[in-house]
């Protein structure tokens, strides 16, 4: 079994997973302690699954109990407070995820990174808006303008379109990991390897 678990939204091999794998591989070239083979990615499905103890795999819960799993990183979208007053928004997400970490008895091994748009003061947003925040201003404005004019208002449609446009526009250099907005996530990921065996 692998000692580090990263829990992310969506299905296996989705955009969340792709971004994380690329970033980990990128970091492993710079920091020798970072070993991508130590990580197990677990796709949690929808955000709401993060808040139900029964949605966590037995392999993980028993792995933590027996010290085999030594670090768990929760990566979850903040989403928008206006859309969901209980689970939406950075603060609500942080509070609710802390509750579940306590219920799982994962406090000693857990860390959390909440995906949001760093340009928004209240830290609303999700993975796609975070990625969008890291591309040059002009292209970013074009994409945002298109989305604003489109009739695709639901979150999932919005995310899919955003992701597709992004992939078409930047096929060879998917993410600018040198952007300062990636620094917090890089720190979280690097910390996973401190004291992991």
């Amino acid at each position, binding site marked *: *079994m*692998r000692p580090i678990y990263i829990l992310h939204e969506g299905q*296996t091999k989705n955009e969340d997973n792709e971004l994380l794998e690329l970033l980990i591989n990128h970091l492993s070239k710079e920091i020798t302690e970072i070993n991508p083979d130590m990580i*197990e990615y*677990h*796709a949690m499905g929808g955000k709401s699954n993060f808040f139900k103890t029964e949605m966590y*795999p*037995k*392999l993980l819960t*028993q*792995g933590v*109990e*027996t*010290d*085999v799993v030594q670090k768990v990183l929760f990566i979850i979208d903040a989403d928008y407070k206006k859309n969901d007053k209980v689970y939406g928004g950075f603060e609500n997400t942080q509070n609710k995820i802390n509750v579940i970490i306590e219920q799982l008895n994962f406090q000693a091994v857990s860390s959390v990174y909440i995906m949001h748009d760093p340009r928004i003061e209240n830290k609303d947003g999700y993975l796609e808006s975070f990625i969008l925040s890291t591309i040059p201003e002009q292209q970013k404005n074009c994409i945002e303008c298109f989305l604003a004019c489109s009739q695709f208002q639901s979150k999932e449609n919005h995310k899919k379109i955003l992701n597709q446009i992004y992939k078409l526009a930047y096929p060879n250099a998917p993410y600018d990991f040198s952007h300062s907005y990636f620094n917090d996530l890089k720190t979280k990921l690097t910390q996973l390897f401190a004291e992991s065996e």
Partner: protein
Amino acid sequence: MTAPITAHFLDYITIKQFKCFTNFEASGFKRVNLIGGKNNVGKTAFMEACYINVHSVDVNKMMTAIYGIKQIREKINLIFSDIDALKFLDTTRVYISKSNLGKKEFSIVEKDAVKEYKFNINDEQKIINARELSLNFSAIYNIKIIDNFGWNDLALIKAYQSIQKQDKESELNECVNEFDNSIESFKVIGDKPQCKTNGEYRDISEFGDGLRHYISIIFALYACENGYLFIDEIDNGIYYDHLDRLWEIIFTLSKKTNCQIFATTHSKEMLESFARVAKKLNEQDVSYTLLVKNKQQEIKTISLDYDSLMDSVINQGHEVR
């Protein structure tokens, strides 16, 4: 939905003292149980502890089980004398376990030049002075262990006789043929187990170890009707391409013979094959128990039922060894 566990099946076990185990517990066993873990974590010792627990229905059977596991480990086929047998029995100084099938305890106590063998079987205690201990070994016919590369000729012949008594030779030959279609049939000729290929019978020892191991498993599945079969290092000598077929036969025959299986492995391919075939046959009466060591170096378990196994191995592709 998982079928209810059959009454005689081992459901859980706690091992207080035995070899590498102190205060160990494992649960969630089903009809077919795969035990994983790194080398030297205690997989074989765990199976031995389960074997002793289910076999110890009285003092003689308990002594037989304790002696038997040593005999298998040391690969001894014959008892030369009571003194030799006693030496092997004495290598296990203490065994304490409890399961849904009962409490089984054994210890050797030496004090003031008096040596005593203490047995506690389901709270019935018996203390025997070493001078009065009579070694009447008697094995239970439908509880068997298969170690590394399968049974020796003698054990195969005995098991084959039991298959003959059940008139199951043709079924057995079908299973052997499904595993290796170049083998037409199995027979005991004289005192040698033989397999027929290209119209000619050849001694089983002329074939690879995998065939002996495989044939031992098939024979044991028939021999252990309504009993238990413990298979150590199940993948030994078995070629990767044959793993799925082996599990298909184990799942099918163990259901037919109502036999509970415990098998150890550290092979990733074996574990993946186990999950894959369970899914294909929708065989939910299975469990996977991973033995691990925690920070205090105590042996603990991670136990997955069918749903968890499917989610971790098949859906998420997680490493579960």
